[in-house]
C-alpha cells in the first residue's frame, strides 16, 4: 500500500474543483436552518465523506448525533441506515443474512442496514467485539462476505458511529487498533446558550429534517469526492509538515505510540477535503492544523502513567511546538 514507486498523483496544480459550491451549500443550509451551532461537527462530517473515511462521534446522548446523521443523509439525498448496538447484536444483524425463500425454493440474501450510503451505528461500544470487528471490516473493505458470497456496499459510503464516553458498565470500548479505522473522531458539544434556548422553545426538529429536500445528486457527491482526492494539490512543504507532526507524536515523552502511517495518510486526505471545502485547490498548513486534532488524537496511545491526560490536549501542545512551513 505504501510502496515508494507508486504512481505520483497527477500534477495538475490548477485543476478546477467539481461541485465545490454544492457541497458547501449543503453545509451552509443545514447549519443555518436545521443544525444551529453544529457547524464544526457538520464540516468534519463533510470532510470525512469527501475523503472517503468514517466518523466517530464521542459524546453523551442527547446532543444531536442522530439528528446530524439524519439531516446529512437527507440533504445529500442518500439512503440512511441505522444500527442500534446492544450486547446481543450479531454480525448478521448488521450485514444481513440469507433466508430460505419457500416460494422460489432457494436461499435469498436479505441486505442488512449496512447496505446504505450513510450508516449510523449508535453506541458502537455496546456491541460485542465480534460484531464490532465485523462492522469495522465492512467499513474498511467496503464489501460484505456472507456465506462465501461477496456483496459490494453502495457508494458513497459513510459510517457515523457514536460512542458514549461516560458510560463504562457493560460496554466493550473500541481498542486503539480499531479506533485507527475511523478517519475522524469528534464530539458535538453543547450548542451555545441562545441556540439551546431556541431549541427548547421550538422543540425538536426531527420532523422538519424528514422533509429536507436533497440538495445534491449522488453523482455530484462522487465527483466531489474524486475532485477532493485528485484535484487538490498536496505540496512538498505541507507533506513535510504532516510528516513532522506525526514524527513529533512518536517522539513525545507522554506518548507510547504516535500517529501511524495510516494516520498520516488519513491526515493528508482530511486536509485535502478541508482545502476542498475552503474552495482552494491546494493544501495549506492551516488545513492540516484544522483537522489534525480530530484526525489524530484518537490514534495516540499514551503511556500508562499519563493515561489521565486528555489526548487532544497532548496533541494540541505538539502541534504548537511544530513550526509551520512559511518559506
Amino acid at each position, binding site marked *: 500500500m505504501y510502496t515508494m514507486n507508486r504512481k505520483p498523483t497527477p500534477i495538475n*496544480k490548477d485543476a478546477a474543483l467539481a461541485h465545490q459550491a454544492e457541497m458547501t451549500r449543503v453545509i451552509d443550509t443545514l447549519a443555518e436552518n436545521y443544525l444551529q451551532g453544529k457547524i464544526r461537527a457538520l464540516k468534519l462530517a463533510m470532510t470525512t465523506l469527501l475523503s472517503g473515511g468514517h466518523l466517530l462521534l464521542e459524546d453523551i446522548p442527547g446532543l444531536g448525533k442522530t439528528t446530524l446523521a439524519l439531516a446529512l443523509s437527507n440533504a445529500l439525498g442518500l439512503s440512511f441506515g441505522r444500527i442500534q448496538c446492544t450486547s446481543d447484536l450479531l454480525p448478521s444483524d448488521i450485514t444481513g443474512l440469507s433466508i430460505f425463500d419457500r416460494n422460489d425454493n432457494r436461499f435469498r440474501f436479505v441486505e442488512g442496514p449496512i447496505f446504505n450510503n450513510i450508516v449510523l451505528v449508535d453506541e458502537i461500544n455496546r456491541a460485542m467485539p465480534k460484531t464490532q470487528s465485523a462492522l469495522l471490516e465492512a467499513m474498511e473493505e467496503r464489501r460484505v462476505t456472507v456465506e462465501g458470497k461477496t456483496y459490494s456496499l453502495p457508494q458513497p459510503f459513510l459510517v457515523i458511529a457514536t460512542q458514549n464516553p461516560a458510560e463504562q458498565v457493560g460496554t466493550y470500548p473500541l481498542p486503539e487498533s480499531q479506533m485507527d479505522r475511523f478517519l475522524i473522531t469528534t464530539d458535538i458539544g453543547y450548542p451555545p446558550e441562545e441556540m439551546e434556548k431556541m431549541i427548547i422553545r421550538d422543540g425538536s426538529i426531527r420532523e422538519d429534517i424528514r422533509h429536507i429536500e436533497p440538495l445534491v445528486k449522488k453523482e455530484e457527491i462522487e465527483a466531489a469526492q474524486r475532485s477532493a482526492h485528485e484535484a487538490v*494539490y498536496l*505540496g*512538498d*512543504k*505541507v507533506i513535510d509538515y504532516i510528516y513532522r507532526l506525526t514524527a513529533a507524536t512518536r517522539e513525545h515523552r507522554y506518548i507510547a505510540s504516535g500517529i501511524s502511517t495510516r494516520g498520516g495518510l488519513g491526515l493528508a486526505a482530511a486536509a485535502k477535503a478541508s482545502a476542498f471545502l475552503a474552495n482552494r485547490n*491546494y*493544501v*495549506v*498548513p*492551516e488545513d492540516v*492544523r484544522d483537522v489534525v486534532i480530530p484526525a489524530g488524537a484518537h490514534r495516540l496511545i499514551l503511556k500508562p502513567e499519563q493515561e489521565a491526560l486528555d489526548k487532544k490536549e497532548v496533541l494540541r501542545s505538539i*502541534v*504548537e*511546538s*511544530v*513550526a*509551520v*512551513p*512559511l*518559506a
Partner: protein
Amino acid sequence: MVKVRSLLDNLVFVVSLLGVLPVWLYLDLPTQVIFPLALLVGAWCDRKDHYFLSAMAATLVSIALFIIYALQIDRQNFVDPALNIGVLLLAVRLLTEKEGRHFLQIFLLSGFALAGSTLVTLHLAFLPLMVLLVIGVTSGLVLLCFYSDDPRLALDRKGFVRLLKMMFLLPSGALLLAIFFFFILPRTQHPLWDFLNPNSKTMVGFSEEVRPGAFSSTSTDDTVAFRAQAPEFDPNDLYWRVTVLDQMEGATWKRAELPSRTQPVVIGGTPVEVTIFPATAQEKFLITLDSPMAAQGVRYRRSSDGVFRFYRSTKRPKGYTITSRLNGQFRAERQLDPAPYLQLPQEISPRTRQAAQNLIASDLSAQVSKIETIKIFFRNQGLTYATDNLAIEGDPIDNFLFQSKRGYCEYFSSAMAIMLREVGIPTRLVGGYLGGTYNQLGGYYTVGEKNAHVWVEVLNDNNVWERIDPNLYAINASGSFLARSSFQLPTWQQLADAVDYYWTQAVITFDFARQLEYLKKGRDQLREWRRGEKTSWQLGPWFVIVPLLILAIYRLCKKPVRTEEKLLNQFRRIARNRAESSSIPHNIGLNDMVRRIGDNRAEEFARIYGGALYRDRTLNKEEIGKLRELLKGMQQNRE
C-alpha cells in the same frame, strides 16, 4: 549530558595553563616545579572531590609565600618576584576547593601572569595565547553565571551547543573591540612600564670595538639583528655598514671619528633603496647598506667616512629607509690627511712588520701595486676561517698569521689592516654585517647577529676607498664563512620568520609616532580629496576593502535571503505590528496572520504567496511585483 561544574573545572585547568605558559621559562626553579604539580594535583582533586589543602591552610600558605617574595622586591628587581608571587598564588588556589569567587580569582591571576609575560618577553606567542585566554575567561564567566544559579546543572547536547555559540560570540566581540582600540588609543612615546626592566639587552655579535684574541671562540646564536626590506641581491654584495674603526689602541681598534668638513661622495654602483627594521633599539649607529647616501624616516648625522649616527638615541626599535649604491665606493676628501689612517701602536710583532716590509721589497711588488701584493700574501698564507680553537696567548695577530693560521673576520681584517698601514697605505676597518637570509614570502632579508662582520677599506691610487674583504682569502672561505653569510631557510621557517616580522612591524613598533603618522596621512589625503585632486590613496582602498570584506564574510556566513523570505519577513513584521506583539510564534501560519491583520490585501497576499509556496513553485516576476505592491499598501494604510 554535560555538567557545568566539570566544564568549569576543565576550563580552569586550561586557562591557568595558558596564563602561566609564556612566563614559565622566566620563573624561579621552585615555582617552575610547583606550578605544574599543583595543576595536576588540583585536577585530580577536582575529579575526586577531595582536597588536601583546607581554606585556612591555603590562606596561611599564600601569606607566607607573599612575604617571602615581597622581601625580594626592590627597584631593580621587581618583575621576577611579582611574577613568582602571582604564579604561586595561582598554584595554591588550584589546590583548594573552588567556589564562585575562587574561579574568578584563578581567571584573574592567569590574566596577570599572561600580562606579566610581556614584561619579560615580547614573543609572538602572546597573541594566540591572549586570544585563547580571552575566549577561556569569557566562557568561564558565562558558565559561572549558570553555575551560581544551579551548581548541579547539567546540559544536554542541544543546550550545550547553544551555550557554546554564546560563549564564542562574547569573546569575538571583545577581541574585535580590542583590535579597534589598539589602533585608536593613544600610545606613549616611551614604554610606560620600562622602569620595570632596567637591564636592557646587550648586543651580541656586533661590537663597537674590534680586538682579535679577546676570546678563544665566538658564540654564534640565532638572534635576529635586523630585517631589511629589499629586492633580492647577490648575497656576496650585501655588506651592511654600521661603523668605521680607524684608531688602534694597543691591540684594539676603536672609532675616533676623524675631523672632517666635507660630506662623503659615493661613486659607481647601482642605486638601491632598503628599509631597515632593527630588532632591538639602536643606541648610536644606523645600519646601512654599503655604500649609503641618505636615510629617511629618522633624524641622523652623517660622517665623512660614511657612518650614519642617530641624532638622538631611541628606546624603541624604529624602522628607516636607506638610499645606497650597491657596490659603490666612497671618494676620499681632497685634502685628506692620511696620517691618522696610517697610525699603528708600538706593540706590533716584529715578524709581522718584517713580513710586510719584505713583501714591498720583493719582486712581486714591482709588478703589481702594494695592495695587490698584500692580497696575494694573504691568499698564499693558507689561513683558515674558524670560530673556535683560537690563539689568545701572545700577539694574536702574529699567532694568526704565522702559527695557528686560524681566525675569524676580526683576525683577518685586523691583520690585513696592520700590514697595509705598515707599508704606508691609508686603511680603516668597517664593522657591520655580511649577507643575510632572504625571505621570499615577506620580501626581506633577515640578518642575524651571527652575520656580524668586519672588513677593510683602503685608499687606492684613484683616491677612492676600496673595499677588501680579507676573509675571502681563507682557504675554506667558500665552505664556511660564505656559506654562513647566506643560506636558504626551509619554507616553514621562512613563514614563521615572516609572521614574527609582521608582528614586530604591526604591534611591537606601533607607537604614538606611527599613530600620528597615520593620522597625518589620513588628514593630508582628506585635504587633497577635498581639493578634488586625483590622489594615490594608500590607506584609502582599505576603507573600502575592509568593510566589503566584512560584508562578504557576513554574507557568506549568513544564508542567502531569497526574495520569498524577504517578502515573508515584511509580511510578518506587518502582522506583528498589527497584533502589537513582540514576536510571532513559529506555529502561526500564513492565514492566521491574515486574520490578525484583517485586511483584504493581506488575504490577497496569502493567496498569491501560499499559492506558489504550497504548490511547490517559485513566485514569478508578476507575482513578486504584485506582492510588493500589496505590502506597500498595507504599510501605508497603517501610517
